[in-house]
């Protein structure tokens, strides 16, 4: 069972602010899903390597040369708030 305290901890890690109702709901639903996922522990995988990616590609590099990049105006066009050529955010410190 995932406790409410664990839910709060995970929500903070995921930068989510949950209502009390959401906390209760996710506590139950995540518990159910993880209970189902416990099935994976039945398998002996001591000698099985993990697969994070199916293609045998490694270290895909491109040539290191200068090219065109997006203009500042284009980059900032979707900004919720800006000042001059910067993204503007609430105070950090």
């Amino acid at each position, binding site marked *: 069972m*995932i406790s409410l305290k*664990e*839910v709060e*901890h*995970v*929500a903070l*890690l*995921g*930068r*989510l*602010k*949950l209502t009390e109702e*959401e906390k209760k709901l*996710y506590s139950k*639903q*995540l518990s*159910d*899903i*993880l209970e*189902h*996922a*416990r*099935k*994976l*522990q039945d*398998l002996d*995988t001591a000698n*099985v*390597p*993990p*697969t*994070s*990616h*199916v*293609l045998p*590609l490694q270290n*895909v590099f*491109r040539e290191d040369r200068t090219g065109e990049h*997006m203009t500042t105006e*284009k*980059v900032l*066009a*979707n*900004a*919720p*708030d800006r000042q001059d050529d910067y*993204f503007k*955010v*609430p*105070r*950090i410190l």
Partner: protein
Amino acid sequence: MELYYLTAHQLHDMLIKKEISAEEITRAVFGRIEAVEDKIRAYVTLTRETAERQAREVDKSIAAGEKISPLAGIPIAIKDNMCTAGVRTTCASKILYNFVPPYNATVIERLNEALSVMTGKTNMDEFAMGSSTENSAFFTTCNPWDTDRVPGGSSGGSAAAVAAGETIVALGSDTGGSIRQPASYCGVVGLKPTYGSVSRFGLVAYASSLDQIGPITRDVTDCALVFNAISGHDPQDSTSAPYDQPDYTSYLTGDIKGLKIGVPKEYMGEGIDPAVREVIRETVKVFSGLGAQVEETSLPHSEYALPAYYLLATAEASSNLARYDGVRYGYRYKEAEDIVDMFMKTRSEGFGAEVKRRIMLGTYALSAGYYDAFYNQALKVRTLIKGDFDQAFEKYDLLLSPVAPGPAFKRGEKIADPLQMYMVDICTLSINLAGIPAISLPGGFVNKLPVGLQLIGKPFGEGDILRAAYAFEQSGARCCKLNLLQV
């Protein structure tokens, strides 16, 4: 038949014979959209003006005697998680409700080069997380076969648009079944290509090691044509595979004599509606009749695919979706006290329930103390699942199975229970874990609702899949033809 119900290859033939113009095709499709979109709600954004302009360009090329590509002048609908320069791309999420990409996804660039005509951006489950489009932050799309039912998901808008005549072809994306399952529910063809065969550049990421873009079409020939246009190596996607790309239409011969097909028994078990199993058994007879050798086989680790998938997909999602913080684009909570408050309130108000649930699950699976037990164990199980397929493909050219446990379900039927909704993807998500290709094509009907059959291939084995799918379609043994939907 009405223009909007024809296939891309039929329309192409008419275009080069100058029997119709591209502008007429586009007008016919938008006329159809006007007539039925109220009932179907397939589109988040329509791009009629640009579409008509693009169509007129194609007509000029034809008039000038230029040779046009098979997709020139063909209307195509794009799932709203692929970036389209200057056209809103929302992922059906409040957090991206106003996002206008400054660049095109590679697939869009390739379709533009082919002079296809984009009709608009289609509805989906928010960030492609779901199996019904009920998780769209905007509205739910209806299944054209029965508007009380879901079109499937997450590419439900694209599949419904193709089925209802609101476009000719479409693109979807598939992370655990999101092209194939809606194709099955809507009675159309959907291909989830081999991981790495279609560029993901400009596809908004859900689970990067599983996501793949693919075609949704009315027949197998159109599927091959769209796949020809969008596949191939892209230096802008480091997970794009360098490989020799054939002309996939060359596989559409109708000849499958001697093809070896395995039917995994785990995909025909208790969780599958008996009526769906019956449809699949009938399709087996058709393939045997066409000269294929079909027999039962086994993928022993199948039962572990669902938990492994949901841990891996959500872990990747929790990391991918960290970028939505209200700083550079999209929704921002305006009255925040400080920056952390802004992050948290922006994300809590911007994401819907399923997205938050998956971020929570993925964050949990990756967090200290649980990483080995859940995430790492799931990666190892992924190896075992992939091994099952490798072993099966030593003996068989293709595997055949249902796409989904049943036909389209009713709206609201599964939305309250996430685990029940996840079960809908039980026949499709192993394929994403293994990175291999699979097609959903109309296989029959259950209670007057279409049911798909799935053909699964080896890595980069789309040719064999299309060969068998085409032979099945051309045999006419089952009702593969699109019904004229009265909506």
